[in-house]
């Protein structure tokens, strides 16, 4: 396929594919969102619509599961999250095709990342911004997408980052249907895994070790057919890291659960007591670390099955990684930006 023009007036900050890979949303410093549809006949990307969506740079955009309709969320340095839904009654390229449903403005600083949770968790959204707070919103009634409730607010950093220092934030959900709810949140040079404890509270389960600089991007691999989870980070220290997460029920909690079942004791007070204890232990293992980009690394993303990882970096190259028999990630291919006339 040939390169195609987005007609953005400023640089693009994010590109997001819809669930099926048939639509693309782009956002830019020009405060516009653009949607492109893949024409199945010509196999070309055709502009669906373009509109001014925020009052500052739009930095991230994400699609919900099609189970809830065609919905996107955008975040901006203007501190707001906006929710949009495609209105098929409106003409393409009318500037009105995407209906504004809601604005969420709880953040005290510019927002850096947004992601919809996997659909089995409901219509749920998470954000992270420069105030270092992870916020989770739920559409309690999927029939009314104008109403979103802030259901969790967690300060990821004990002290909010100093405004005069460089900072970056990123987050990603665990998409596995067979694994309990989990989200990775990166703030500055630290990565944290949060999960829900027995009483439904979002608590920190573990951290991602070894980063020596701002974490630029994080991606959670779809875990098709694996009993463990994989996630990848792109870091300012020049490294792409791949972590393996293994969940195990702790013996202690097994015992407690058994005791609860025997006593048929499910009262809330007991749950409150266990708030700080999780019944699942997550082991984190750094299984792969690559500095092939010879400079800062900027983005990581996984394919459908979590078998191929992409990375990009300051060497102007895109690298694709694939796991070998022994779960070691090896470079499958290097694509030079110059070859593709990106520069």
């Amino acid at each position, binding site marked *: 396929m040939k390169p195609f023009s987005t007609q953005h007036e400023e640089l693009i900050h994010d590109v997001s594919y819809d669930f099926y890979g048939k639509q693309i949303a782009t956002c830019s410093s020009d405060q516009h969102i653009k949607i492109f549809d893949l024409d199945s006949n010509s196999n070309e990307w055709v502009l669906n619509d373009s509109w001014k969506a925020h009052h500052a740079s739009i930095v991230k955009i994400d699609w919900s599961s099609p189970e809830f309709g065609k919905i996107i969320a955008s975040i901006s340095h203007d501190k707001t999250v906006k929710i949009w839904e495609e209105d098929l009654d409106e003409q393409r390229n009318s500037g009105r095709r995407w209906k504004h449903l809601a604005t969420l403005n709880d953040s005290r600083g510019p927002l850096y990342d947004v992601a919809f949770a996997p659909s089995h968790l409901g219509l749920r959204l998470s954000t992270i911004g420069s105030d270092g707070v992870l916020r989770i919103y739920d559409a309690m009634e999927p029939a009314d997408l104008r109403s979103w409730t802030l259901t969790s607010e967690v300060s990821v950093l004990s002290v909010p980052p100093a405004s005069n220092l460089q900072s970056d934030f990123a987050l990603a959900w665990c998409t596995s249907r067979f694994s309990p709810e989990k989200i990775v949140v990166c703030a500055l040079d630290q990565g944290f895994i949060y999960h829900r404890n027995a009483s439904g509270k979002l608590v920190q389960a573990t951290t991602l070790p070894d980063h020596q600089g701002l974490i630029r991007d994080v991606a959670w691999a779809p875990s098709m057919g694996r009993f463990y989870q994989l996630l990848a980070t792109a870091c300012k220290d020049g490294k792409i890291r791949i972590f393996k997460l293994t969940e195990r029920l702790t013996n202690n909690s097994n015992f407690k659960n058994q005791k609860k079942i025997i006593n048929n004791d499910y009262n809330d007070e007991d749950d409150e007591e266990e708030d700080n204890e999780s019944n699942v232990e997550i082991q984190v293992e750094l299984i792969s670390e690559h500095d092939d980009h010879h400079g800062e690394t900027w983005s990581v993303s996984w394919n*459908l*099955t979590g078998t191929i990882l992409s990375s990009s970096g300051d060497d102007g190259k895109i690298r694709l990684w694939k796991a070998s028999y022994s779960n070691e990630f090896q470079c499958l291919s290097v694509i030079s930006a110059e070859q593709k006339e990106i520069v």
Partner: protein
Amino acid sequence: DEVENWRNTSRILKYKLNPNGINGVGFISQDPTSDKEIKVFPQETKLYPISIPQSDDSDAYTEYISSLYSIYEALGDERYYSVATIGLIKKNAQHEQAEVLNNAFSLTIQELELYIEHKQAQQDSDASIFELEECLYILNALKAVFFANDQDVPQLLSHWINRADPQPSIELNEAVMKSEKPYQHPYFWKFINQLVLRGLYSNAAEALKHSEYKELNSIDLNLFNLFTDAENLLSNYPIQSTPEVFKEWKKAANTASSNASIRNKVSENNELYKGIKTLLSIISGNKSIIFETSETWYESLVALIYYHIPSISLLSEYFTESLQHHQPDRTVVWEVASVDIFEGNFIQVLRSLSSFNSATAAYTSALLEAKGLLKGYSLDEDENGKIIGQNSLLDQEDLFSTRNVSEFLLHGHALDCLSIEKLIPVGIGLLALSRNPTARSVIAEYLPKYNFKTNDDIEWALTICASLKLPTIAHVLFRTAAQRALNLGLVLEALTLFARAGDI
């Protein structure tokens, strides 16, 4: 330098993989920690679609894979190796399984040949053709040694080497046969011997016939008779015959060879006597002459199976002897893989195939598995095919922690298929056929991502949910279909679907 300049202006490169395909887009972005004003050029706001190299969604490839899958699916229960036990019924069953697997292997080879032809017919034929050819040579060797009826083996071995390394060359053929008196051409014997050694006996007979040797009738009758004997022997080679018939033929060959040996007197035609003597020695299965005249281990191997004793039970011995006289070329992948085949190093064979085409390797491994050839590489299995051992729990939890080689390759291939729209049914089919319980969970993870277009597609997905007992996934599919119907303005249909999803 260009990259350096670009970096100094706070520009960065990002790439996003398509979450449901074999491509992605690259784009230029801005360092989020920089507040530099950037003058943006139009080409910098373009998106650059880039496909994952080594992924193929072309019609030729998807047809090839779909055909291989059909062959695999049609195996039914024969895809599981049945252990030989005492009893007539079991023996018959084994025999039938061998027939089924041999046929499946032949079909696999046919499909690969067809795929290669398709690729060759395309204008923009690429380097992958050479890799597919190498796969074909390896499959031909496997077919000849492990997936053939005994009487077909010599021909299949001949086919294997003549496809992989066609000799004698067309140039030599033309130089010899287009000369005025081919039988006097300096390379005539090299040419004829090579044809004979490689099992191309009828071509050799034809070449002899047209070599103008008949003029010897009036010059040197003995020599003429030896030529005639050679031509007759080659024309009447008893391919696929009973051992008795071969014995008779070999007796005649030995007689002719002896006749050539006793003609020792000095003659003008000494070179011709020498040539015909060597030829008749090869035909009569003389081992030392075969090793001497052949150029490669596989040439002498084929000559021995044709002319020494065409018995499969001697194949291994012939292989060992041939290697003692001719070292294999370690730089040629198909040749090394063929040595591995004879030595039974099937993992190495699959590794070689995988390096060229992982899908072909996966289906081949399934046939090897069914034939019981990968037995030694797996964990022990009980009668039901369940893995016994302390790691069994782990094996059941993971699609890839299996120690079963073919399962590993097929699962990997199945996941590859899920990213290619036209191969999704193949991917799901392979997972549904898998005996690994995790495969069901992969289908459950995948199905909600299936971009169904028609009601038939939805029905297909729902049938899978029903057969694998995945009610929750069926609800997700109904809900997604309902949203789609709603978007298309089909309110009643949407309501019905929401109801089926249990939402109203």
